């Protein structure tokens, strides 16, 4: 079945440094979604990418969908302590297949 891999598993950064998490699927994706889960919280939708090569920005967050629609990345510029949490990519149409997530720690 479809598998979604995500790296790195953990990332520790100093506040102000950049952060990137990468997502790879074993099969071509019709779309990819990104979620953020704060410690003790629930996943919160960030964005959905649908088109090959698509790039979307939300303030300091930049999301990319690969040309082959099998990989994606999330880049955060100048991290802040409020960015702390686990970032998940997820593929699938009805049911979401989540990557393992990247846990981001930001040190002030």
């Amino acid at each position, binding site marked *: 079945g479809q598998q979604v891999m995500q790296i790195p598993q953990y990332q520790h950064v100093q506040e102000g440094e950049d952060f990137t998490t990468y997502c790879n699927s074993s099969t071509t994706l019709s779309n990819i979604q990104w979620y953020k889960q704060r410690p003790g919280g629930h996943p919160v939708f960030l964005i959905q990418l649908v088109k090959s090569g698509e790039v979307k920005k939300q303030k300091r967050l930049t999301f990319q969908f690969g040309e082959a629609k099998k990989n994606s990345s999330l880049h955060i510029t100048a991290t802040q302590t409020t960015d702390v949490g686990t970032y998940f990519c997820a593929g699938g149409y*009805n049911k979401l297949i989540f990557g393992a997530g990247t846990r981001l720690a930001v040190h002030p």
Partner: protein
Amino acid sequence: AAGVIQSPRHLIKEKRETATLKCYPIPRHDTVYWYQQGPGQDPQFLISFYEKMQSDKGSIPDRFSAQQFSDYHSELNMSSLELGDSALYFCASTGLAGVSEQFFGPGTRLTVL
């Protein structure tokens, strides 16, 4: 804005007991999804419903069953509980089946002793 409601928020059960988790989707959302999240793991899809019919099935044990009712709320029934069932159970809803973002509830933390 109204969010997904789940009850109870916490549940403690003994092995071999049964548990029922409830989910109330956002008003006018007709699709409900159930996920199981173990400690430090990603959410695993269990089952989904669209317009009260099961629409997709994932890694849901045979000991579990679920349904969606006429008011669109959903219940996840878990029987013969095992220690390994201890996890966070999330319900999510969408307004259009298979489209766009899923809105997650706060989750039910189930502990099996």
